[in-house]
């Protein structure tokens, strides 16, 4: 289940784990070093249990000096490092290395400062996403990015993955809401990237570091921007007889100059999957349902919802309903927010994909996915961040059935390649991790992959930070290319792509 392991371990000098353990014993309290299987078993996988690897050692540093001691010891003893936040990655970003150490950042769990007037908070990386908004709430402020896992995921993990959420069309991704980072490099040096003042000098390292999946350094503090909580939010629920019409409605809303706070589409299969569990009142006969949230002052929301409702109706909606209360708004969202949980209830396993496509290709892509259901013999339901083109197909399978895991993975890979073919990307917000290393060969040319590797060397000349993730080796792409039509052949500079 960990195909990356075989060809990449050999590229590192043999790690000396015994030497590593001996050198950190004095630097960390004994209870922060986990080396027996009953302690480390809990770290064998993250939110993508398709990939598992028992880590030989897990360390849980409590502060920056301890972290620096661990990194120095890793460098001295050639020990690969897998950083870990709350372990909610959906791409195997925190899948352990078979001969490495997992550095868990859970003990970095303090909010270091919150300045309500300047609307800025400084937090340690282990602080949960939702905890920032909870701390800011008494001041009428919140932290905007809200990935579905926000109750559990940590801000450090959000930085590593550039996490999004359902409100990012209007409020941006993690990268748009982080002002500064304090990081420790593999060389044990502390770097401040960005800061509270705008436009830090030099190369723009802050947004480059965000989304780098733990491969460039370890975060020890995050400075985030807080926003005033909108006075009111309402959601419009509209049903459509075809996916095309729903897509057209989205196009018209945005063309009218409206940037909704949230804009989500569920296909019929997803609607039928969730409705029995959440009783949101979704139209089971609709081919697609749109949820469009409007927020702001009462006047703003009233104006925007009436404009959007009219656009939906003109685009052919068969039913349009505006939430009349906060309770109803939450109920409309409940189905969307629980789509994954509902999949888990009706199917023994599910595999959540994360491609992004230009929105204009939505109907074509959903049609092709329906065909793939037949080819791979598995069902798939689709939820879609319609505003920003991020598609989450949920492939339902049963890991106990012979070859269903392989079929699910093949189905997923085919979906991602389709996303690239229509001008999109293999991952919108979950990250490449260990899961999509092969598909990187499909999306990027060798020159582009080499540039990623070169940039990593600038931060991590020893290749120790989260190796095996994100950047495929030449050999791996060659193997992958033998099985697939390779976009690399199309990526000569002077040929238009599509």
């Amino acid at each position: 289940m960990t195909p990356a392991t075989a060809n990449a371990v050999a590229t590192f000098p043999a790690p000396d784990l015994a030497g590593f353990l001996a050198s950190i014993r004095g630097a960390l309290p004994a209870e922060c070093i986990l080396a027996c299987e009953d302690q480390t078993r809990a770290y064998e996988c993250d939110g993508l249990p398709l990939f598992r690897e028992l880590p030989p050692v897990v360390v849980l540093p409590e502060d920056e000096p301890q972290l620096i001691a661990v990194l120095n010891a890793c460098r001295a003893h050639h020990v690969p490092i897998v950083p870990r936040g709350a372990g909610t990655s959906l791409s195997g970003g925190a899948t352990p290395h078979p001969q490495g150490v997992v550095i868990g950042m859970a003990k970095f769990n303090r909010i270091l400062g919150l300045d309500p007037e300047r609307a800025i908070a400084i937090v340690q990386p282990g602080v949960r996403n939702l905890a920032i908004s909870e701390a800011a709430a008494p001041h009428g402020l919140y932290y905007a990015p809200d990935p579905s896992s926000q109750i559990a995921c940590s801000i450090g993990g959000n930085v590593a993955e550039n996490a999004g959420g359902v409100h990012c069309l209007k409020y941006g991704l993690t990268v748009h809401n982080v002002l500064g980072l304090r990081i420790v490099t593999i060389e044990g040096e502390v770097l401040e990237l960005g800061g509270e003042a705008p436009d830090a000098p030099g190369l723009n390292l802050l947004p480059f570091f965000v989304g780098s999946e733990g491969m460039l350094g370890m975060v020890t503090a995050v400075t985030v921007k807080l926003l005033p909580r909108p006075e009111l939010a309402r959601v419009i629920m509209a049903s459509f007889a075809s996916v095309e019409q729903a897509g057209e409605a989205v196009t018209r809303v945005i063309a009218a100059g409206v940037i909704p706070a949230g804009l989500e589409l569920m296909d019929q299969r997803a609607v039928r999957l969730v409705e029995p569990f959440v009783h949101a009142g979704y139209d089971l006969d609709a081919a697609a349902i749109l949820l469009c949230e409007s927020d702001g002052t009462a006047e703003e929301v009233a104006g925007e919802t009436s404009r959007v409702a009219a656009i939906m109706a003109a685009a052919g909606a068969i039913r349009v309903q505006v939430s009349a209360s906060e309770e109803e708004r939450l109920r409309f969202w409940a189905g969307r927010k629980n789509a994954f949980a509902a999949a888990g209830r009706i199917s023994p396993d599910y595999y959540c994909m994360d491609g992004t496509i230009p929105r204009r290709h939505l109907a074509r892509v959903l049609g092709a996915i329906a065909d793939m259901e037949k080819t791979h013999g598995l069902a798939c339901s689709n939820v879609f961040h319609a505003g920003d083109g991020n598609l989450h197909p949920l492939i339902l399978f049963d890991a106990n059935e012979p070859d269903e895991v392989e079929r699910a993975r093949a189905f997923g890979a085919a979906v991602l390649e389709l996303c690239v073919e229509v001008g999109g990307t293999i991952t919108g917000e979950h990250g490449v991790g260990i899961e999509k290393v092969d598909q990187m060969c499909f999306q990027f040319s060798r020159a582009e992959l080499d540039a990623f590797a070169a940039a990593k060397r600038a931060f991590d000349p020893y290749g120790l930070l989260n190796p095996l993730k994100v950047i495929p080796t030449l050999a791996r792409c060659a193997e992958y290319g033998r099985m697939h039509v390779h976009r690399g052949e199309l990526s000569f500079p002077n040929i238009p792509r599509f």
Partner: protein
Amino acid sequence: MESVLSGLSEQVAAARAAGHRLVIRGGGTRLFYGDPLPEDDSCAWLDMSTYRGIVDYEPAELVLTARAGTPLAEVEAVLDGAGQMLAFEPPRFGPGDTLGGCMATALAGPRRMAAGPVSDYILGTRLMRADGEVMRFGGEVMKNVAGYDVSRLLVGSMGVLGPLVEVSLKVVPRPRSEITLALALDEAEALRSCTRWRSRPMPVSATAWLPDGSGGRLNVRLSGNESAVHAGAAEIGGELLEPEKADAFWLSLRDQAHGFFRQRPLWRVMLPPGAPPLGSGRELHEWQGCLRWLGGTHDPAALRAKVRELGGWASLYHRDGALAASPAFHPLAPAVMRVQRRLKQQLDPGGLFNPRRLYPEF
């Protein structure tokens, strides 16, 4: 256009083979910014202005893709036609302004504080490396975390990592309503007000404070839905400026055509929100007090030490005689400089592109 691009690739590859270095140039309107070019003749120009044109623009996708040499004016005219705009209000210095130059310098106008930095709006780039091969990073979609975000790294890179060939940008709808209010406030009062508004749900899209005979004047622009703009105006108070006068004022700041910008040398100082007055007596504030333009002669080391203590940085924006050879940008912490130099060495191993433009060490 493909033959233009292959011509540029050949020029780059030939320069590398001949051991020449290249200075990337669009319309040449931003050459004043950054460290001076080497004075010897080891550098040749790489003229990107011929590689131009909008490649793709779908207003409903909120994405525009254009070649680096496309005039900024052309991009903004096309967006305006669809009721959209660049969120960061980039300055225009002349008809030669190109999109590539705009991205490489990352200079932004009055709307920057509300909109975020230029790099917030870049979705994808094509970058030419030293052998002439073009690499593509990011794409034309809003959410994309495949590989490192090289596109955002290139914004503000002053071309030291290579020439941008093409960029894809997120664009935004023009606000439905916009008004400007003028308030008579001294510097400290203006700064306090700007800071206070940060945590208020008001659509402040620009602020500018200027000293005048009686203390000073703060202009505040509100942009958004009519109801939010009016609610904000009621909270802020002050005198409503006529729209034509207001537009002319913000344009004069955006394009740095206001008389204040004629001072030499001119410093561009960035500070955290809430930072106190610098006490120089000759300042113009934008961005809710986070951008301070400073005229007059200041000792670079002393000014930078003071600004750093407040959590900011200072660049020498327009130089003159005495400071002609002084580095433009705020010095980096040694550990940060080490990583930045390694990035330059890794991505442009032969040091082919834009020597010294960002730092003398590059």
